[in-house]
């Protein structure tokens, strides 16, 4: 299977192509068959590939399938590689992706453009797999842009809805900014190392001296640029604005792309280039701070959002912040660990939310929900599980990963305490707004119009994935279970070879800091419980209280409700000036006056000349004959006055 690794991404591509080309005519059943079949197969292939990889016991499998670009000493090939990190990502992508495909067959059943949706979805799978399997930055960038594209297509899936179309554009444009940085980073790396495939870059970088804190050397700048791209893709400050709007897309999309997989690409890239990052503490610190800030910032916004999907979106942002925090403090394994668990429970949350929306016939505003717990039990339970997981209740997946991150943050030498504090606070907020969501949605008395809206449980094609994901988000974290009785962290050891020796060292340190870890875990649980209790008091026992609280600190509330006016700020600072510039300078001045003027001028000139010359084309054969003679005379004259010319001509003939 490894030898034919390309099959893994190819299958979804085929599915996408087939559906895209023929799907329009086909009934949904066949479209399902194609899309689910292709993704499912590729999931199996991925499993098989992983099995073989471990069977072979090699640290890194790498195969160059064909050379794509070759210029001078630069080579960018279709090279795929597999190591532990890849396996994790690959399995998450194909597995979760597959589940979400199944879910979508139920969720989208009544939508128009069914085949289109699945074609896009498969396309996304293809690009995402390319991204995670790529063995060099160029190919990775291909996947990177590809997922951006399919995300754009899917956000704007209901392109007739203006908000959706705009959201799509917004996502695309904001990502451009990040990609810009990413490309610059790649160029810089190429200049520094003369190659872009991971092996060469990392081996060379490994030999470089680590750049001291606050020193901006090549590596640091490269890392920061890469991180800029990552921030764009993974919706970190200040480029996070597109993700909440991306909720305009169908819920499965939000689940797959904007929660589980695509948005984590940034984290993946940072983890993938951990060698570079670990050589520049400055960059690491930046990553950590940005991550931490984003986590807190987004969480605060999430507190007051009323749209169920918006809440989840902000929570996604903040969880991504966690992951970056982890990477920033050097706990890449923890980051990836959280990435995985988050993929499980956040996907689950979104799908469940989707199920809720489905049940209410498209209602997304929590104030108009409530009391659904009894009506749609399965959805309720699964969503509850996910909430517990994300809130970090012990023995649930989120607990372990978040705990690992906080612990790492606490331990980190530079400003560890502050980061930890914010992380902890975020955990509290997370717990609060998640439970707020649960309570507003499932408990209390219904606030929707029961005559018009008749709630119904979703079909099994939707509930099945929910169940599976629920299970996963329970057991997903148990790799790390042993650490609590001084055992090894399996996940860390597992990722060790891929993410470098630094982890191993830390594993050693962990034993020493074991007691400390237990304490921190306790603290985290405490924070979660506080969040829970507050939410309970505000929304269940004394519902009135929430509004009073909002009234009492109206200013802060409105600020939060309006998401700190960030969008407005951007609009004022960036969008409007740009619009003005492009309208007046580029369009009116340059294009209309300059370019069009020139083109039309040339056209007019040509027309005038032609009008003049036209008269020689009298259509009178005899005149033409005369012209022929004139030409002959010119030739003869050349031969006569300039014999060498004729010699040359003859020479040409011979």
């Amino acid at each position, binding site marked *: 299977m490894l030898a034919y690794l390309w099959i893994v991404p190819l299958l979804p591509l085929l599915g996408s192509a087939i559906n895209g080309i023929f799907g329009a005519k086909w009934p949904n059943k066949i479209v399902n068959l194609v899309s689910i079949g292709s993704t499912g197969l590729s999931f199996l292939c991925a499993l098989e590939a992983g099995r073989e990889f471990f069977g072979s016991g090699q640290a890194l499998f790498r195969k160059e399938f064909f050379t794509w670009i070759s210029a001078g000493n630069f080579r960018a090939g279709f090279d795929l590689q597999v190591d532990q990190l890849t396996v994790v990502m690959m399995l998450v992508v194909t597995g979760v992706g597959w589940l979400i495909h199944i879910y979508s067959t139920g969720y989208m059943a009544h939508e128009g453009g069914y085949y289109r949706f699945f074609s896009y979805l498969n396309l996304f799978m293809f690009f995402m797999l390319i991204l995670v399997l790529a063995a060099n930055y160029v190919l990775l960038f291909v996947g990177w842009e590809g997922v951006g594209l399919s995300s754009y297509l899917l956000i704007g899936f209901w392109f007739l809805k203006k908000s959706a179309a705009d959201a799509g554009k917004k996502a695309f444009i904001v990502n451009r900014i990040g990609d810009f940085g990413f490309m610059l980073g790649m160029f810089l790396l190429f200049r520094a190392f003369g190659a872009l495939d991971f092996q060469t870059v990392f081996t060379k970088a490994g030999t470089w001296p680590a750049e001291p804190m606050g020193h901006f050397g090549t590596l640091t700048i490269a890392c920061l640029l890469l991180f800029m791209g990552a921030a764009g893709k993974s919706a970190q400050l200040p480029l996070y604005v597109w993700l909440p709007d991306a909720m305009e897309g169908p819920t499965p999309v939000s689940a797959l792309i904007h929660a589980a997989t695509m948005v984590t690409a940034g984290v993946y890239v940072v983890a993938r280039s951990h060698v570079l990052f670990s050589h520049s503490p400055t960059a690491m610190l930046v990553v950590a701070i940005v991550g931490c800030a984003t986590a807190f910032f987004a969480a605060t916004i999430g507190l007051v959002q009323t749209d169920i999907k918006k809440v989840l979106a902000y929570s996604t942002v903040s969880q991504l912040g966690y992951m970056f925090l982890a990477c920033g403090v050097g706990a890449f394994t923890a980051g990836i660990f959280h990435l995985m668990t988050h993929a499980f429970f956040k996907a689950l949350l979104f799908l469940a939310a989707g199920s809720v929306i489905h049940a209410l016939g498209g209602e997304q505003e929590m104030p108009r929900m409530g009391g659904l717990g009894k009506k749609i039990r399965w959805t309720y339970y699964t969503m509850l599980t996910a909430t517990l997981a994300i809130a970090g209740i012990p023995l649930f997946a989120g607990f372990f990963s978040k705990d690992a991150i906080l612990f790492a943050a606490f331990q980190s030498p530079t400003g560890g305490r502050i980061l930890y504090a914010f992380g902890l606070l975020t955990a509290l907020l997370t717990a609060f707004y998640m439970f707020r969501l649960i309570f507003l949605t499932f408990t209390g008395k219904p606030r929707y119009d029961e005559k018009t809206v008749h709630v119904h449980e979703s079909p099994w094609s939707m509930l099945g994935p929910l169940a599976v994901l629920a299970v996963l988000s329970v057991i997903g974290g148990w790799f790390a279970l042993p650490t609590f009785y001084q055992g090894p962290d399996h996940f860390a050891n597992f990722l060790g070879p891929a993410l470098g020796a630094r982890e191993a060292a830390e594993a050693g340190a962990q034993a020493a800091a074991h007691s400390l870890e237990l304490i921190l875990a306790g603290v985290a649980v405490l924070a979660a419980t506080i969040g829970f209790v507050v939410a309970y008091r505000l929304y269940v026992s004394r519902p009135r209280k929430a509004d009073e609280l909002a009234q009492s600190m109206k200013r802060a509330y409105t600020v939060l409700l309006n998401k700190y006016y960030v969008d407005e700020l951007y609009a004022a600072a960036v969008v409007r000036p740009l619009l003005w510039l492009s309208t007046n300078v580029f369009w009116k001045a340059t294009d209309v006056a300059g370019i069009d003027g020139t083109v039309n001028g040339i056209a007019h000139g040509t027309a005038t000349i032609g009008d003049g010359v036209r008269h020689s084309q*009298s259509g*009178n*054969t*005899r005149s033409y*004959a005369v012209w022929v*003679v004139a030409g002959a005379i010119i030739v003869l004259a050349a031969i006569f006055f300039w014999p060498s010319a004729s010699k040359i001509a003859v020479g040409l003939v011979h």
Partner: protein
Amino acid sequence: MVPTNYYVILSAILFGLGVFAFIFKRNVITIFMSIELMLNAVNLAFVAFSQALGKLDGQVFVLFVIVVAAAEAAVGLGIIILIARNRQTLNVERVDLLKL
């Protein structure tokens, strides 16, 4: 023995006359004939030089020219017949529209 120059000059004269006819005749067929005249003049020069240089290439070339002329005549006259059929005239000055 006739000097080669004489032949060549004769061919030049014929060629000139051919060009003249080519320009100053109005009848398509006659114009076509003047082209043949020019070809003949060239042939004469060919043969003259071939005799002068004692090489036969010239004569072979003449044969080729004749073949080409024959083909040309076949096609050309076909076209002329069409013109006469569609335009009801053989005067090139009256045939100055691409489309009727």
